[in-house]
């Protein structure tokens, strides 16, 4: 199909109308329109959370949030991006903390203001049940909080919508850190292997392999058994 014949959509980038092919993602459409990203563009694959985009569509009061790299444009879309979440990151030392909600509240007392309005959940482009996760934390259920928020990419859309001014993505990072550090069982075999390596248990094996010529190495490689 030639460029001109492609079905087009009209989108409003910060209020200005542009015609763009309707198969593009918001990100590619903004570029097509002539913008070059410095901010609001990162991994382009749905992992980094930098391209959070707020939009409305015609005849709809609802405010939508999606990642620009993961959302296809629609006709009559009114778009603005969130280049930065205005928030300092509070500092903490996980090593000196306990895995409790009280510790999280010590850093983020504002989570006690959660109104259960659930607007955060509506805002999350990762479909995380954000309010549920905050409330799980209030219930002292760190594990539930972690499981609910594991897919959080810290885009901060929730935090821009929250009437209680919670910066959820930071709260969840702390919760996951505490859980990971204190509430998961350390892998025993890992500790043992680190010790074996430190003691030099594999030095001979490795040195032998290092000194081996390529042909012999290839032989060994071919002969290695693949674990089922």
């Amino acid at each position, binding site marked *: 199909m030639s460029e001109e014949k492609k079905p087009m959509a009209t989108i409003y980038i910060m209020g200005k109308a542009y015609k763009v092919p309707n198969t593009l993602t918001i990100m590619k459409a903004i570029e097509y329109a002539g913008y070059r990203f410095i901010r609001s563009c990162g991994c382009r694959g749905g992992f980094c959370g930098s391209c959070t985009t707020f939009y409305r569509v015609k005849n709809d009061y609802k405010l939508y949030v999606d990642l620009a790299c993961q959302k296809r444009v629609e006709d009559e879309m009114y778009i603005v991006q969130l280049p930065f979440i205005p928030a300092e990151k509070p500092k903490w030392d996980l090593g000196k903390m306990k895995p*409790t*909600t*009280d510790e999280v509240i010590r850093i983020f007392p504002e989570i*006690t203001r*959660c*109104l*259960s*309005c*659930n607007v955060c*959940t509506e805002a999350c482009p990762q479909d995380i049940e954000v309010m*549920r996760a905050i*409330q*799980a934390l*209030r*219930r*002292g*259920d760190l594990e539930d909080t972690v499981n609910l928020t594991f897919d959080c990419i810290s885009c901060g859309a929730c935090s821009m919508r929250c*009437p209680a001014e919670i910066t959820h993505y930071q709260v969840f990072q702390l919760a996951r850190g505490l859980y990971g550090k204190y509430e998961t069982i350390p892998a025993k075999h890992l500790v043992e292997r680190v010790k074996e390596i430190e003691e030099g248990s594999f030095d001979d094996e490795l040195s032998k392999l290092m000194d081996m010529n390529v042909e012999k190495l290839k032989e060994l490689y071919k002969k290695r058994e693949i674990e089922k």
Partner: protein
Amino acid sequence: MEVLYYPGCSLKNTYPEFEKSTYAACEKLGINLVEIPEWNCCGVVPSLATDNVMRHLGAVRSFINAQEKGKEIGTNVVVTLCSMCYNVLKRVNLILKEQVDTLKNVNDFIDDQPDYVPELEIVHFLSLLKNVGFDKLKERIAIPLRGLKVAPYYSCALLRPDRPKGVPIDDPENPTVIENLIRSIGAEPAEFPFKTECCGNYHIVFEPHIVEMRTKKIIGSARSENADVILSPCPLCTYNLQHGNETLDRSEQVPVVFFTQLLALSLDVKSHLSTEIENQIMKKIGGKKFV
């Protein structure tokens, strides 16, 4: 008997002994508490603003979850232990029963859950015990706490305000339900003029001296009545009273325990009292159960 149970943040985070002693007692009494799944924070203090229903949402979401769970197990009774939670939940539920517009408003706003049909009954655990009957309870007591003098501290949230009608669990000016409980477990209630006075509530956060002023008076009153312990239904009062105790000389302090802990002790199940307090009590009643 199977009822729905709303724990609240304190029982899960601050005072697990309150919940654990209750579970222990309930098992003995044949009461099955079914925790509401995914309950939300109630907000602790009810919003008195009539033009802002946002602050009721946490309670309503818990009602919805309770309602759905209730359908499964066949009950509409929600029991609370924390008196602050009780006050908020009771009040909001009554408002929703009375005010059709408010109910519609919150149901419309909460579009991600089923509608709330205000048919739940919010009951404080003390009322539940009262309904079971203190006489009947008395029959189950294994270790009567004879000789133990207990100051019944109601504080505010179980008694006030009577608006919407039906919030108080007893007469706001002269309640007796805790005294009845104390008697049924074999202990002696102290005459306690400060039993319905306020501990200072949330002022502990920014104006702790207000709480200190209040709790010193309350503890002093209990002490002058020779109370061995103060019995509390409220985690916040308990915290504030303990804070008050810390500002006093050891000789002037009166230990504060949750009512369910004494109940559990008298039923000869795990009270989750601190060893020190449990020993003190057992010594006082001449019991053999030294931990």
